[in-house]
């Protein structure tokens, strides 16, 4: 009997491990995960940009001359692009935050609903950024 037991080949079991940081690229993230990590990245980015944005606000408010200086600074295309990126981060953070408020009130908590609202956040924040960008580059 003991011999029979020995002959049974050992089953190869699949190992399930936690996702490691280097695996992240191999996973197809659901829309909610993308919104979530972008919410975090945009929040940290806005935190870091705070003094720069306050400096621009100060230029725009201090005096007539500094206002002209402000206009000169934001007239540079690289500055405009930086401001556009910051605007996207802000608007994404804004839309994702409002989605949080809906979820706090138990709205769209299921898988499909959360996916739909996540896509809405991504699209709406991009549309708002396009509007800000067109205004920033003087289209309307």
């Amino acid at each position, binding site marked *: 009997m003991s011999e029979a037991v020995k002959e049974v080949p050992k089953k190869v079991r699949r190992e399930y491990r936690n996702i490691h940081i280097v695996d992240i690229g191999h996973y197809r993230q659901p829309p909610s995960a993308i919104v979530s990590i972008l919410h*975090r990245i945009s*929040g*940290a980015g*806005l*935190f870091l940009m*705070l*003094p720069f944005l*306050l400096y621009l*606000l*100060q230029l*725009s*408010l*201090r*005096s*007539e001359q500094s*206002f*002209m200086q402000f206009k000169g600074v934001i007239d540079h295309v690289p500055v405009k692009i930086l401001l556009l990126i910051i605007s996207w981060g*802000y608007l994404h953070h*804004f839309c994702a*935050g*409002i989605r*949080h*408020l809906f979820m*706090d009130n138990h709205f769209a908590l299921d898988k499909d609903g959360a996916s739909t609202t996540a896509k809405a956040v991504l699209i709406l924040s991009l549309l*708002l950024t396009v*509007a*800000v960008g067109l*205004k920033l580059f003087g289209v309307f």
Partner: protein
Amino acid sequence: MANKENIGQNRLVVGAHYGIKDWLIQRLTGIVMAVYTVVLLVYFLSGQNFSYEGWAAMFAQQWFKLLSAATFFGLLYHAWVGMRDISMDYCKNVGLRLVLQVLFVLWLLISAVYAVQIFWSV
């Protein structure tokens, strides 16, 4: 908290519930900033030929200064909760985390003083 969750008189075994206040303030400050954002966004998207007079006149009113400052202090707390969360999630070294959190607080406090100076300079 419900008594059945306690061991003995006071000790909770299902989380300390320290986070609920921060969670709530995160929401309330978020709502304040969202309202402020909508006001400024509509102003920006609907305005034409921005002049110093128009822009500064808005910030020169006392109620707008107070609203701006209140919104900024909301931002201060909101950003603190968010950045503290990030540091707790990714920085496992206690000493480094403490240094980071001190830097976050200094960064935000300096920004807040700077913001108040800007709002009351108009």
